[in-house]
């Protein structure tokens, strides 16, 4: 399976460029034109990245996470979510790299094939870094009012977390 995934990226790139060449598109000039736009976009999203990553970094190092973990313990018990994965559930939407570190800790401490390890794996594999996505996507536009984006995205995250535990109960 991981063999296949190594092929996807190069094949996709060659497919796009090759198809363009067959259709007699000036592929190199088109690429440069598009890449120039990419550079502008990168500069546009930088302010949003700085704001979000700084805030998340300060939040993480203040130890606020411990309190949230403690506060959510009864909720987790009620829903059969092992409490060892609560820090992962809290960190997953706000920090991709932070979640990765906690995920690796959990795998090391409880083993990847234990119940806790499996729930953490499913959580890690079935959600994305919500805050980062929102900041970067809207950062490239002039949108200030994101309306229902954050509540909807968090709804998806919360359902995803509880379903991770349930799915491991039911399927594995």
């Amino acid at each position: 399976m991981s063999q296949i995934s190594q092929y996807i990226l190069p094949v996709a790139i060659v497919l796009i460029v090759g198809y363009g060449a067959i259709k007699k598109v000036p592929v190199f000039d088109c690429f440069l034109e598009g890449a120039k736009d990419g550079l502008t976009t990168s500069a546009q999203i930088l302010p949003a990245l700085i704001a979000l990553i700084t805030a998340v970094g300060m939040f993480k190092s203040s130890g606020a996470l411990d309190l949230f973990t403690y506060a959510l313990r009864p909720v987790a018990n009620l829903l059969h979510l092992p409490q060892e994965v609560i820090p992962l559930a809290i960190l997953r939407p706000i920090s991709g790299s932070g979640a990765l570190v906690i995920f690796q800790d959990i795998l090391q401490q409880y083993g990847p094939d234990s119940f806790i390890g499996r729930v953490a794996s499913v959580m890690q594999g079935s959600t994305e870094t919500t805050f980062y996505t929102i900041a970067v996507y809207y950062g490239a536009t002039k949108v200030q009012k994101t309306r229902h984006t954050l509540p909807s995205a968090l709804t998806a995250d919360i359902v995803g977390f509880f379903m991770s535990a349930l799915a491991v109960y039911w399927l594995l």
Partner: protein
Amino acid sequence: MMSWLFTGMLVLSLLFGILNGRMEQVSISAVNECSNAVTLAIQLAGVMCLWSGLMRIAEVSDLTGKLSRLFRPVMKLLFWHLPADSKAAKAIIMNLTANLLGLGNAATPLGIAAMKELEKISPRKGIASNEMALLVVLNTASLQLIPTTTAALRLAAGSAAPMEILPAVWLASSMSILSGILAAKFFSRLFGKGAD
């Protein structure tokens, strides 16, 4: 909404920094993390340029048009008001395809391109349209069919069957995506025409 989130996190980190006696770490993060953001943006600029360039080739050669005809039923279901052959619709399809294939690095630039196209046709400037919100929600949930990074980390940690989580991942992520879509459709009414 993002302003509240930003303020909230900063106030909480000050509060907990004082309570936990971790003000030194908090202030170190404040200095370090903003530079880390720049490093990240530079790393991102590479893939951003690569995929913006490839996207342009796919547009001119009408590869995106071919893909969009293939995905038309899905698009009709999710993005009701978006004309299927619009530039925005094509960009969204490229973004969703990249997500499904697990090309996370490609999905971000393609998704941002789609956001910009959606912004161009949005009637109310500065306010997210329902289509923009839905696209972001789809990207905050995971559409990836094979979670390769997670599987690789499981393998590295000595798992006997790193891929055994697949059915559970599919169930959890499809329920998560479904509830995200429903929430986006439902909440869009609550948040009216621009209340934040």
